[in-house]
């Protein structure tokens, strides 16, 4: 009896979720099995044809490669730098509160704004970066640098977020553990490896979960910074999907690309969540 009552209370939330999340997801999957071209008034069921086309689409594979490269490199750098900053800022020192607040500024700026800002800093002629380095590199125009430049901006922007989450993780580690370890004669490196890292694991997994999913869907930074160019060397899956959906109006194939992004993100989430719950069981 009690249980039934509980179910009823969940209903409104469930209804809301199905309207704003489940319905769009199902609709995109439905669209992905269609050939839907708005300007031609074409809309017919074609089953898996879009997916077959996808397998032969060089632009898709290129976008997938860029997306994985972007995600892999930016998330690793952010984790490494975020961890260093978190450990530094977790020590007691004067002005700690201020330092933490200042650190968060890049994260607080909307991505579109910071992307515009970086676009100017990367400018070959007037850019701050080339001025400081005393060189003339065409950061956003060279196929080699462009994606790395976008990664650098993402690292600049999101490292503070990673650091804040990790600081929170560090703070729940009881101070007695460190004292006990020191009494037992453990060195700093040993303490880090045997105490900090294992106890920080859940926080790190949360960070990785958030950041991997975010980075994998990266759109605004790239769209503003390079628009996917030069020659699609910075085009990620989301940017490609956007162009197919909203610029060329191929709703069917665009949805197929979105489904692929959704599947990748889904698989990654499941892996992370499994790792997290396994931790909890231990």
């Amino acid at each position, binding site marked *: 009896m009690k249980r039934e009552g509980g179910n009823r209370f969940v209903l409104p939330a469930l209804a809301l979720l199905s309207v704003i999340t489940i319905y769009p997801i199902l609709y995109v999957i439905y669209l992905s099995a269609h050939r839907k*071209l*708005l*300007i*031609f*008034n*074409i809309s017919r069921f074609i089953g898996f044809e879009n997916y077959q086309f996808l397998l032969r689409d060089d*632009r898709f594979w290129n976008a997938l490669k860029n997306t994985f490269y972007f995600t892999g490199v930016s998330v690793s750098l952010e984790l490494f730098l975020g961890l260093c900053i978190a450990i530094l800022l977790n020590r007691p020192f004067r002005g700690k509160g201020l330092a933490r607040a200042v650190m968060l500024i890049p994260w607080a700026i909307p991505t579109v704004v910071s992307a515009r800002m970086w676009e100017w800093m*990367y*400018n*070959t*002629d007037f850019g701050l970066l080339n001025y400081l380095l005393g060189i003339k590199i*065409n*950061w*956003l*125009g*060279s*196929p080699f640098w462009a994606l790395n430049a976008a990664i650098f901006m993402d690292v600049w922007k999101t490292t503070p977020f990673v650091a804040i989450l990790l600081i929170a993780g560090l703070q729940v580690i009881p101070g007695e553990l460190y004292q006990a370890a020191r009494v037992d004669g453990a060195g700093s490196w040993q303490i880090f490896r045997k105490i900090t890292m294992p106890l920080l694991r859940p926080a790190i997994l949360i960070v990785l979960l958030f950041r991997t999913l975010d980075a994998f869907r990266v759109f605004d930074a790239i769209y503003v910074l*390079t*628009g*996917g*160019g*030069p*020659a*699609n*060397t910075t*085009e990620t899956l989301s940017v490609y999907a956007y*162009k*197919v959906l*909203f*610029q*060329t*109006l*191929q709703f069917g194939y665009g949805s197929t690309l979105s489904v692929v992004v959704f599947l990748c993100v889904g698989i990654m989430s499941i892996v992370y969540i499994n790792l997290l719950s396994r931790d909890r069981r231990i």
Partner: protein
Amino acid sequence: MNKTMTNIALLILCLVCASCVPSEKYDSKKTVIVFKHGKIAGDPAQFERLIGKFEAENPGIIVKDEVLPASTDEQHQFYVINLEGKSSDFDVLSMDVIWVQEFARAGWLRDVTGLLPEDERDEFFPGPLQAVAYKGIVYAIPWYIDAGILYYRKDLLMKYGFSPPEKWDELIAVARYIIPREPELYGFIWQGKQYEGLVCNVLEYFWGNGGDVFNEAKVVIDSSENIHALAFMRDLIVKYGVTPALVTTAIEEPTRHIFGNGKALFMRNWPYAWNIFERHGSPVKGKVGVTRLPSFKEGVSASTLGGWQLGINRFSQHPEEAEKLLCFLTSPEVQKLLAISIGYKPTRKALYKDKDLLREQPFIAGLYDVFMNAKPRPVSPYYMMLTQVMQPEFSAALTGIKTPEMALISARKQIEHIIKSGEQ
């Protein structure tokens, strides 16, 4: 504290009620038509005055003009989403020259052939006229026109005794002579980022060398003329060294800044930059000249056509009133007013001989030939797909990822695929 909160709540309530009461302006007997457009350049009061004039001439109509986001991609997206949903929330819409075919094919635009009778068509430039007709039916009326032109530094060319170049090899020779003799000066800048503007730039070289994207229905984008033209653009950067590599990330505004700061000898851009260069305090005021874009030895100069057209939403509830606004805004009088007040270039040829206009903007006379020869980008309902193919391929050739030949062959294959799937 509590009292203040109550007062605030009351105030909010009053405001909400007040906004529900129909204001004087929206009299129920009058018809309200909504005009959607991108940001109007210059002082918005000028345009409001114009709308006021229309309302005074047509007492039964009220015009609400609503501004869309600045980026044309977002405007396109707005129209597509709303027209696909058969929205009747707006009546008159302004469209980029490349959208009319697409919207017409989708059945989203009202036939306005009646507003543009055969004998009146000659009054417009041929390029925009071609862009607004789909299968013999007119779906929009050209509002204002744009085309790529060559800006040059009058003072520097005079100093070294050169005249404005007419062919590309002349431009290279002039630039290579002057660059080493002037401190911190680029030769020739243009727009090479992977975006719509890159297509506009590249097509000008194709046409200037006698090439094109289509020949009737056949895709000829990988013709030897085009390969040569695209290779030449890359050579401007790597072989001749007159164009800095930064153009591969540049859109209009950065190039306008560089030229406007006196740091470039030549620039390809749209006519809008002229008014900015001539403003008070501009470092290049009085030093800038404009001319047609150069061409290759055997070719003739050609510019890419830009500009905006006005059409009527097919789902509009007030088509007659919308037609009146369309006629008003594209009339010779209003085009002249817009040209003088905010610099929009008229689509009607006769205005380029208008004495008042020539007095206000003398450089407009020189644009007549450019606009007469301006060519629309491939006039096709598939255009938005074609450009998504061309942008990355052109970019690949300019940055040296692919040879021009490889890039254009790949573009041809993709375009053929698009056309084929459109015919199914």
